[in-house]
């Protein structure tokens, strides 16, 4: 087998050196009645050529985003990632290294984590960021738990603009942990009254902006009300590119900012692996979940980096840890950091402008189609339209015409008639005028 360096001679010699007769002598601790004598009921080894053939055939059954006019967003976004990024993250020294517990020989990883933390803190206008969570949704769950620790309360208020699957993650965790969650109804237009839900039992308010539906939300009044009640504002985003153009949550009063970083450096990958961004105020740093990389010096006084404040973490603190997270999204952080280093603020701002500009163009085009209503006034690169038909059917018909047109809200929020005709549509720098025209033409056709 191509991955196994030992040959039969090696194996025989090594068993002799160990002083046993057969390999099964080394497995003698496994009770005889459950020790397998036969192979698993699975295919035998396959050549690289064969594996490649089979998996390529499977992959070929899927319609890739890059092969069609593509407008699906809702938490994951099709962006163009420079070839340099993928080249660099495949460097053996990055790809096949472990978590940097031995800092003397992992300064490569540690330094990029320090760069990553700084980038995230600046993007969000917060003091400190950690070295990543699994993704935006699990990060949101962790943020709520952190708010409970900070406030010593256990009631979270979730905006109706929060991504429904993020909401489900928070609810699931809270239900299991015995915490309370108040989830507001779906709010496509950003007009819910969340302020009235905040009281002295509230540990945190969780608000997404731009919302799941694309609507920009004014966080300042919410932060103000929350702080009056000594509750925290957790600001969530799913499209990190938006931070290149819109006011960051940090300057709007957020206490914890959490979001999805996939758009920068990372592909769609059918939903994972992604990279959760997590930032907060300096004063809360010891309540943060996840890894932190800090600056220090070595025995010769040279600057170096280490994982730090690990007394918060499970491998030291065990059942008193701030989170059970261990492995996070190291390599996705690296992709993020490299792509962001290439962009810089000049590039990011421009990228964000292009994204927004493309969304504005698309909105105008779609708004001109009879029966289509755009629900959002202020938005970044996605918005919600109300269709005169069930959105899920329309999307299927568009898919048959070779256009992947967006997310029918009902896929995530089934059974709510008010939402059945809503479609969340995203537009990024990859969309061309031709893509938009094809979408509009096909939609007209389907609605006609």
């Amino acid at each position, binding site marked *: 087998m191509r991955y196994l360096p030992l040959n039969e001679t090696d194996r025989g010699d090594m068993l002799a050196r160990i002083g046993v007769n057969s390999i099964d002598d080394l497995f003698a601790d496994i009770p005889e009645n459950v020790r397998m004598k036969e192979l698993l009921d699975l295919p035998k*080894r396959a050549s690289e050529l064969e594996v490649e053939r089979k998996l390529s055939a499977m992959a070929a059954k899927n319609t*890739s985003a890059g092969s069609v006019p593509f407008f699906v967003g809702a938490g994951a976004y099709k962006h163009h990632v420079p070839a340099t990024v993928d080249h660099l993250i495949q460097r053996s020294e990055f790809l096949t290294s*472990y978590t940097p517990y031995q800092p*003397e020989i992992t300064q490569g990883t540690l330094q990029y984590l320090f760069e990553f933390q700084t980038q995230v803190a600046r993007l969000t206008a917060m003091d400190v960021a950690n070295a990543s969570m699994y*993704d935006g949704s699990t990060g949101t769950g962790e943020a709520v738990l952190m708010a409970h620790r900070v406030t010593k309360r256990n009631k979270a208020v979730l905006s109706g603009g929060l991504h429904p699957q993020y909401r489900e993650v928070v609810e699931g965790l809270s239900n299991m942990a015995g915490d309370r969650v108040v989830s507001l109804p779906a709010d496509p237009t950003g007009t819910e009254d969340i302020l009235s839900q905040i009281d002295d039992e509230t540990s945190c308010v969780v608000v997404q902006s731009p919302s799941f539906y694309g609507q920009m939300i004014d966080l300042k009044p919410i932060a103000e009300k929350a702080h009056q009640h000594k509750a925290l504002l957790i600001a969530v985003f799913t499209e990190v590119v938006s931070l290149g153009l819109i006011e960051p949550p940090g300057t709007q009063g957020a206490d914890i900012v959490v979001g999805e970083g996939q758009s920068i450096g990372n592909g769609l990958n059918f*939903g994972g692996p992604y990279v959760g961004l997590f930032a907060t105020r300096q004063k809360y740093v010891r309540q943060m979940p996840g890894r932190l990389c800090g600056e220090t010096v070595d025995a010769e006084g040279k600057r170096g980096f280490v994982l730090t404040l690990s007394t918060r973490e499970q491998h030291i603190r065990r059942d008193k840890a701030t989170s059970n997270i261990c492995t996070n999204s190291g390599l996705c952080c690296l992709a993020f950091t490299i792509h962001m280093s290439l962009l810089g*603020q000049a590039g990011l701002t421009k990228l964000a402008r292009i994204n927004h500009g493309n969304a504005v163009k698309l909105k105008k085009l779609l708004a001109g189609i009879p029966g289509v209503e755009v629900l959002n006034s202020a938005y970044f690169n996605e918005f919600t339209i109300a269709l005169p038909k069930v959105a899920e059917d329309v999307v299927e018909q568009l898919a048959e015409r070779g256009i992947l047109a967006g997310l029918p809200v009902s896929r995530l929020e*089934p059974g709510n008639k008010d939402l059945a005709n809503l479609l969340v549509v995203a537009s990024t720098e990859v969309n061309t005028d031709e893509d938009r025209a094809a979408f509009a033409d096909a939609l007209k056709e389907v609605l006609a």
Partner: protein
Amino acid sequence: MEEPLIFEFGSLETTGVDLDEDESAEFELGGFRRQAAIGLPGLAEPEAMRHYVRLSRNNYAIDSGLYPLGSCTMKHNPRLNEKMARLAGFGDIHPLQPVSSVPGALELIDSLAHWLMVSTNMSAVAMSPKAGAHGELCGMMAIKAAHTAAGRDPKIVLVPESAHGTNPATAALLGYKVVNIDAKDDGTVDLEALKSTIAEHEGNIAGIMLTNPNTCGLFEREVKQIADLIHAADAYFYCDGANFNAIVGKARPGDLGVDAMHINLHKTFSTPHGGGGPGSGPVVLSARLAPYAPLPFIRRTEDGLELVETNAATKDGEQPFGRMTAFHGQMGMYVRALSYMMSHGSDGLRQASEDAVLNANYVRVGLQDLMSLPFGERPCMHEVLFDDSFLKDTGVTTLDFAKAMIDEGYHPMTMYFPLVVHGAMLIEPTESESRAALDLFIATMRDLVMSAKRGETDRFSGAPYLAPRRRLDETGAARNPVLSWSEPEPAEVTPAAAE
């Protein structure tokens, strides 16, 4: 040459990404446009390339040397898997594009689920957990959901002291009280102690979290009896699958009474560790727990595969406890793991486990006369645990010893874990090492031990000498945490210099 931070040499005006902007575009941001600068420097592409290439060269990696981190399973990462994960049909599909446009994605996930279930002899698998610890959380949530469904609310989870920190952390996260269970002198669970602990907390035990093979590198011989005792107490057996790589094709958790076990795809099935992730931690479930598997899942029907994403789409007998994450989990890792499993096949997977155990025992016999085995000279599984008694009176600590390995070109083994032995050193060579590589490693380790015993303490206390950095001040880092870069204060100007 020292490599600066991007903030120290990048420029706010520079960008390494060319973009075509339509300058006539309009804005509909509703007054939310960012006012202040972000403060992120950009690099031209050649600058970025050189910066990150140089950084990488300060890292140790499996591809550059033996990486004997016990319990972490640093094995070869085939590049075929990387290539497969980058096929547009896997890497460039959106989690929420129409299900009808991704039949191959469902097929891939279902195929991997099948391989996982068959190799563990379990009834179901929750695919979505994002890493091992997330899998533990998922498994324990399924257990809690099962208790709730049965109208029970037990408060205690049993965890042996040798467990990974994630085990107690996970139990605590769900509000459980963690009760320790003792080990015998041979490093495995003390069945009598378990019995009395169960008796003590009768009716209040939710489950046990046990790693098997355990973190001492030993297979729990009495695992079936443990499972029976737990089940008799109306509790569930959660198995930490971090060490599953030792027994693939040799024993199936489903035959051992396990109710839930996460599988670290980045350990057993070789998706790259990537400097700390991404991982992937699907959880296999027994028939008793299968109904509670979280959303989303794929249902096999006569008409093919159906994706179930919401409670509204569930059928009788499907009672998902909730959702672990947005979307479908770590698709990119699924592709890599399936590619790895297909490549090995049933025969190769079994052979890999055998070779991993063979290599660990080869290291054990190569070192056991000089180093100290806490549990005697019995065979180990895929990793071998030493304690620090062989360093007694040498003035060399486990940490010193480990750092001295760096100067010899090796990554240290896992240190001070598990907590059950003093100054633990846990060595896992994996099946990826050749006999020649092991011989060289053993010879180097023997040389280090002899050196320590000869009292050459300088070689250890100051180590590493040859790494990109000498030992780092971790205490200082934690006392005064500097977690992001800030513009240095302008240097104070002395009056003389100012003149």
